[in-house]
């Protein structure tokens, strides 16, 4: 599979994705799946400026990403697919049964969210959505950067955000 990482990250394209994961995985393309960004040229230009010239960035809404998923996985380059939130990833997973792993990379503090890891804050509804993804046989883990410990959903749902950094 040439999509090396399916990531939920509310910052979308940023240093951790482009450099932190992009360098060690030798990423050639990023698929940014966001229904709003997919319809906004200005937002796309903004994110395009954030990636190096040798890295392609593909913008898609969820139906397009579901439709084109086979093309992503058939690409000879390695890629990262990123969504801004859990619900977008859930819709994608429901449309693409081949997705076997989902990385929770960054969901930051908001009113109503409870800290689970230092980079993961969740509402009860969001926890339910992650559980629904997991219930489809998808392995859901949290890991912000490649050399950090992978934390399984069952574990980080019990945490309170005060775990050691690695």
């Amino acid at each position, binding site marked *: 599979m040439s999509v090396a990482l399916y990531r939920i990250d509310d910052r979308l394209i940023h240093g951790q994705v482009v450099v932190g994961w992009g360098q060690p995985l030798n990423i050639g393309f990023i698929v940014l799946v966001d229904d709003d960004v997919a319809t906004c040229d200005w937002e796309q230009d903004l994110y395009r400026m954030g990636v190096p010239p*040798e890295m392609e960035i593909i913008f898609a809404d969820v139906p397009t990403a579901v439709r084109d998923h086979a093309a992503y996985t058939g690409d000879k380059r390695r890629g990262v697919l990123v969504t801004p939130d859990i619900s977008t990833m859930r819709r994608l997973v429901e449309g693409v049964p081949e997705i076997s792993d989902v990385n929770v990379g960054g969901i*930051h503090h908001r009113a109503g969210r409870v800290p689970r890891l230092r980079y993961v804050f969740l509402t009860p509804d969001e926890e339910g959505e992650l559980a629904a993804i997991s219930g489809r046989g998808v392995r859901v883990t949290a890991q912000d950067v490649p050399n950090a410990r992978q934390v399984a959903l069952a574990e980080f749902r019990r945490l309170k955000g005060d775990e050691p950094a690695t």
Partner: protein
Amino acid sequence: MTSSTADIDAVARPRAIVAGHGELPQGLVNAVDCISGCGAVFIPLSNYGLAGSDIEAKLRQLADEHGIRVFFTDLPGGSATIAVRRLMRTDSSLILITGTNLSTLLEFVFQPDAPVGDAARHAADKGRATLVVTGDDEPPASAPSENR
């Protein structure tokens, strides 16, 4: 450097925000203060633990509060840089300098009377010029990308 010691107030008041990853902004501003005593020219902001929208809101709040138009960030593709670009969408008077290093900030500090656009350009030129490799006569086989 274009040095001016006549206007201490101008050197001491916040004129720019330094935003980026981890403790780098605070560290850079601390280093500026150690060298020049003018760390107060900059307001540091770490993106640590903040969503993109929160970074943008915090930058906007600090800029409005202090009348700041100049932003220094670390990575061109980092979340702080993207947040500043969002602010620039609605305010064309803002100025962004990415790839910031210590020399960049020091150059900016000592141009209190220059128009901020000129000061920012001089600072970027200075910072770029101070990246020097010493001790290897052979050029690298392939240069790393600058656009991160």
